[in-house]
């Protein structure tokens, strides 16, 4: 029942926009129930993948190269769980958090549209369909970034929209050229045709277009200019969504799916990926450490952590891919948590400037403790989940004889630790700032969501236990390692 992922989220989006104007409770309930259903379905998809390895769903009963098909394999199941887990917890958080904005139903409607777009990107087996869903998700996110309708938010949204549209047009041009070259839009069929026709300069050009297009979506360093503006301006639950899953689904997932499974990855591409990853890692963290705006600091850290993911997957070894994907999951957990923390601080104190905070630990114990867990996790301190994925990444670099990259990864981690020490010192520890006497801990739904995220941070390392890994990480790694065999499994199945 792969189509349900799209049906539920789209249906919820339009039902909310139809009836949500009347009652806020209806919006809360619909959004939470549908994201919870999606989360359960995605957990179920893990078992389906375990049993059948690849499932192809033919929309309208049309056979794959002719019609559009949805493909569920290990990699998509992995991404589905990550996406729907994060979106479910963020939906819980939004019940209370979004009260401070007007027009809550519009927020929920756009939020569900974004979730629908991302589910579609993950599941589709048709490259033009991927573009359509990618646009649904990004257009919804442009609107959500501008949700506060202040000058700063509108400016960020405008910048984000312009850069996003440029990246989309790169991707569309690439898809057009690919269609002209292969006369098909089905991803598996494209892969087969390329294998038959051999490598040509068209493919090289398309690769460059896709690298730039999806690179902008995932905010790798030469293409990162939109992110530090867009993420801080959005409401915190949307920053968490953007940073936690949007840049990964639209950027990393599509990039990896196309380069590993369709084109067949080459040495040159891997070198480019590792280079981009290493640059993003260092530049992101150096820019982050000097920031005083809490959310802006977190946004720069997203760039740096995405650098880890790309660097590790770019190694091309099974261990590297494992580390990259595991870090992708972990990052979506702890970065969402950190953004939710920053949202909670902003909710209570109406302020994001680190210089004006201090001693919040007394007044907001839940926020400060969960944020401590997330900070330790992102800096790679054992036993939190970030430690395990960074350990694998560094081991993979050493195993692949790339000591330089391992060194960069360690440096990045130390600088991350330094900048989060700064956050902890100025925001939560120390003496209570006298202007903040009257603040209170945030409402219950926000606390609940942050505590669940923190628990996942704490126990995330357990996913590496062989038995659990068989279900969650291993199938995803296998899909990327097996490369262009994707075509045969999809068309054969």
């Amino acid at each position, binding site marked *: 029942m792969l189509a349900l992922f799209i*049906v539920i989220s*789209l249906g919820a989006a339009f039902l909310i*926009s*139809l009836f949500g*104007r009347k009652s806020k409770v209806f919006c809360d309930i619909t959004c939470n129930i549908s994201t919870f259903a999606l989360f359960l379905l995605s957990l179920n998809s893990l078992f389906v993948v375990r049993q059948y390895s690849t499932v192809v769903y033919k*929309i*309208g*009963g049309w056979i794959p190269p002719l019609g559009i098909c949805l493909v569920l394999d290990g990699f998509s199941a992995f991404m589905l769980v990550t996406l729907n887990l994060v979106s479910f917890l963020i939906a819980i958080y939004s019940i209370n958090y979004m009260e401070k904005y007007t027009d809550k139903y519009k927020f929920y409607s756009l939020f569900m549209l974004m979730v629908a777009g991302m589910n579609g990107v993950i599941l589709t087996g048709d490259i033009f369909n991927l573009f359509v869903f990618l646009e649904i998700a990004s257009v919804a996110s442009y609107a959500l970034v501008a949700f506060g309708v202040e000058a700063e938010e509108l400016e960020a949204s405008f910048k984000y929209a312009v850069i996003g549209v440029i990246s989309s047009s790169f991707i569309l041009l690439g898809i057009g050229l690919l269609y002209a070259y292969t006369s098909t839009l089905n991803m598996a069929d494209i892969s087969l045709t390329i294998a038959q026709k051999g490598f040509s300069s068209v493919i090289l050009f398309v690769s460059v277009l896709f690298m730039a297009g999806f690179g902008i979506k995932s905010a790798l360093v030469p293409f990162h200019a939109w992110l530090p503006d867009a993420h801080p301006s959005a409401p915190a639950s949307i920053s968490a969504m953007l940073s936690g899953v949007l840049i990964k689904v639209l950027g990393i997932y599509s990039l990896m799916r196309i380069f590993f499974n369709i084109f067949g990855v080459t040495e040159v591409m891997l070198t480019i990926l590792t280079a981009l990853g290493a640059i993003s890692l260092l530049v992101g963290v150096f820019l982050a450490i000097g920031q005083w705006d809490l959310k802006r600091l977190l946004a720069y850290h997203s760039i740096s952590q995405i650098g880890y993911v790309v660097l590790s997957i770019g190694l091309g070894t099974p261990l590297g891919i494992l580390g990259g994907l595991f870090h992708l999951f972990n990052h979506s957990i702890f970065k969402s948590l950190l953004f939710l923390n920053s949202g909670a601080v902003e909710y209570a104190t109406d302020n994001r400037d680190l210089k004006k905070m201090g001693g919040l630990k007394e007044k907001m114990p839940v926020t400060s403790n969960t944020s401590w867990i997330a900070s330790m996790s992102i800096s790679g301190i054992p036993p939190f989940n970030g430690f395990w994925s960074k350990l694998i990444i560094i081991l993979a670099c050493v195993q692949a004889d790339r000591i330089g990259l391992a060194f960069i990864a360690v440096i990045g981690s130390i600088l991350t630790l330094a900048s989060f020490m700064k956050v902890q010192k100025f925001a939560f520890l120390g003496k209570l700032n006298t202007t903040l006497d009257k603040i209170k801990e945030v409402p219950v739904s926000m606390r609940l969501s942050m505590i669940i995220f923190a628990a996942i941070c704490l126990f995330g390392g357990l996913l590496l236990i062989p038995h659990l890994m068989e279900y969650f990480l291993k199938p995803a790694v296998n899909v990327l390692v097996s490369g262009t065999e994707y075509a045969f499994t999809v068309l054969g199945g």
Partner: protein
Amino acid sequence: MIKNDKKEVGMTLIVKTITRLTVGLILLFGIYIVLHGHISPGGGFAGGLIIALSFIHLMLAFGREAALKRLSEAKAAILESVGALLFLIIAVLGFTGGYFFLNFINKGKPFNLFSAGIIPLCNIAIAIKVGVGLFSIFIVLVILQEDRKE
């Protein structure tokens, strides 16, 4: 010269007369494009655009009130969601035959008006969504413009 105490809305008499003659035809042509979407060029999107243009035409010639009297903002917002939901429901009804988006209605003879199963129904749903959506975008832009003037 007689002074009008009411502000003159819309454009000149020439434009208004021509609009009165053409606006119905434009609307009809839009509906024609939608209904014949499966047998001739066009379809839900193009037809919906033309339908929206007929309302926008009305608004340009006679002022905002004339168009909003026929289709208010609130109604437009509701219709937009309804159009999208209708499309989704048609797609989901395909599950009765086993597949999402399955063309489950009898397909009939090609090139007849009543043929092609669910395609005409999809076209109608898309036309509602696109037409009303474009109209609401236009309303929002117009309101923004008038707010700025005040």
